[in-house]
């Protein structure tokens, strides 16, 4: 069976027309004065989903999260949670909890008091509060830090306290605003997997805001790519990467080579493209661009093969010269200047320690790729 990306996803309510949406943004607009932070945005999130809002700073992703938490009200449109319209419900009455980017731990309270704060607000009896706090401390492995104050903890420990505090009330939805932004790289990678395990264990719906594409790709079931207050694409990480819907998405996530051209011929199975400088490219992955239309062909660097001779079986092969090479250990990155002047980035996984066909600066080289390796996008 063929599938996009290497992970098979059994959990996919978004493909099920009968699945009931859990969180719905319905034509939501948010304006701050003249500035439109979120523009007529509609989005559906399902129960138990790990959903990521990914975008550059100022794209409106945090505003979306804050509207869900109740700190901002939409200027227009509705937000529904489990069928209930959230308009007018203040943050302290919403069944969602948020983990803040700054963690927002109460500096004058100990770790256990911080975690107990939300439970006490809902009037839970003292003994139950204690039990739940102990449970949460165990969950985030901070049992021996219960009596410490936030300033007596390291960054990673604070992050875990913030997490424990936000899940202690068993919210319907947990909102995470750049949850790993303040951690160093190694800790961030560990914590990504911890968060995924926690989400599985508690069976909660997570909505995470991030600007880090790797973080979103690692953790999320689905990602919404946002730009200027609008959603550019909502899809699984593999779809976002392998089948981006637009030039913006292709550029935003990962590296990409773009060839501008015209559709020369279009049949049911293949599309033949003539590049701006005459290069011919054949694509067979179901593009429906009509003949004569202006398009771009986008292809990821690792889908391109670099060799000193033209491969005999290659459908698409272009000749050029090695312009730059970088050996990174796990892979090698080539920049090849094609004869028409365009520079192509290609990366090769170093699957073996020795290579038959070593290349270096200024060598003549061929770049080749399969007809299903790239996608055709509107110009």
């Amino acid at each position, binding site marked *: 069976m063929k599938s996009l990306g290497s992970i098979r996803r059994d959990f996919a309510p978004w493909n099920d027309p009968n699945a009931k949406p859990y969180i719905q943004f319905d034509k939501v607009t948010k304006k701050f004065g003249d500035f439109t932070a979120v523009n007529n945005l509609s989005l559906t999130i399902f129960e138990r989903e790990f959903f990521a809002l990914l975008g550059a700073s100022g794209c409106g992703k945090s505003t979306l999260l804050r509207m869900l938490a*109740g700190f901002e009200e939409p200027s227009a449109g509705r937000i529904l949670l489990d069928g209930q319209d959230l308009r007018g419900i203040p*943050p302290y009455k919403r069944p969602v909890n948020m983990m803040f980017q700054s963690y*927002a731990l109460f500096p004058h309270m100990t770790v256990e008091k911080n975690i107990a704060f939300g439970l006490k607000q809902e009037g839970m009896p003292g003994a139950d509060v204690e039990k739940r706090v102990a449970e949460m401390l165990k969950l985030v492995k901070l049992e021996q830090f219960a009596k410490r*104050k936030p300033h007596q903890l390291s960054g990673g420990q604070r992050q875990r306290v913030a997490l424990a505090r936000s899940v202690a009330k068993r919210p319907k939805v947990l909102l995470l605003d750049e949850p790993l932004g303040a951690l160093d790289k190694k800790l961030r990678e560990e914590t990504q997997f911890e968060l995924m395990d926690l989400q599985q264990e508690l069976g909660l719906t997570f909505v995470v805001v991030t600007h880090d594409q790797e973080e979103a790709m690692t953790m999320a079931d689905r990602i919404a790519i946002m730009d200027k207050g609008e959603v550019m694409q909502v899809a699984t990480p593999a779809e976002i990467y392998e089948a981006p819907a637009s030039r913006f998405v292709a550029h935003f996530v990962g590296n990409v080579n773009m060839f501008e051209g015209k559709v020369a011929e279009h049949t049911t199975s293949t599309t033949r493209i003539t590049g701006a400088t005459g290069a011919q490219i054949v694509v067979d992955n179901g593009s429906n661009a009509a003949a004569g239309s202006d398009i771009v062909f986008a292809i990821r660097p690792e889908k391109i093969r670099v060799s000193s001779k033209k491969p005999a079986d290659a459908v698409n092969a272009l000749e050029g010269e090695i312009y730059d090479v970088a050996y990174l250990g796990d892979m090698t990155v080539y920049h090849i200047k094609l004869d028409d002047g365009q520079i192509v980035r290609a990366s090769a996984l170093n699957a073996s320690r020795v290579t038959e066909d070593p290349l270096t600066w200024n060598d003549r080289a061929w770049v080749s790729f399969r007809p299903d390796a790239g996608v055709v996008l509107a110009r």
Partner: protein
Amino acid sequence: MNSTWSRFNITSIVLGFAFLYLPIVLLIVFSFNESKLVTVWGGFSTKWYVSLFHNQGLMDATWVTARVGVISATVATVLGTLAALTLTRFTRFRGRVLFSGMVFAPLVMPEVITGLSLLLLFVAVGLDRGFLTVTLAHITLTMCFVAVVVQSRLVSFDRSLEEAAMDLGAPPVKTFFQITLPVILPAIISGWMLAFTLSLDDLVIASFTSGPGATTLPMKIYSQVRLGVTPEINAACTILIAVVAVGVIIASIANKRREIQRQLDEQAAQRG
């Protein structure tokens, strides 16, 4: 940094400190003077301290000053904190610039003008001058100082703390008392202490707005000095200096210890 003790450094330090502290040292020394003549040393004695406590006029003035100080500082702290909250939180209301300017204007207003205008006001509304008017005047004087101190703390206050509390189910009023107030409390306390000190210290405004039976300590001292300086006044001033010095020393020791504790805590956190 050059840390050698050059002759120039030593000279400037000696001169500087002499300039600052010689008058005070003289005052303290002469408060222990046996002689009634202020500028002639007649041997060591503590008799002026004893007689001080039998001087009913001075004792009354001290009591008035303490009450005016505590009441005006407390009211000024409440009002100043509210003003600071409004100025930092509601940044977009109409007339904010005017309002903040008006809150802080008394900081630079000559005291004579504040005193005089308050006097005119009290006369106009027919308020008898006395304890109440001095207290009101001191609230006016000190409120803006409290506002400045509290506002500087609020500017660095992380609003997400309040959002987190509300997110966890605490309504706004509860959030204020359980989160905001405890976090900014040190600034409020320093604001109160500043207000109290200013009230304790004030002579000009008190002279304008006080009436019979509400003579504050600075007024009393000033009026007695005009009749001739007595060693008794020196003794009173020495006690005032001692009270202020002890307060400052306690505050700085507490501050230092907190700082050390914080560093220890942070080292402990680094170790995990």
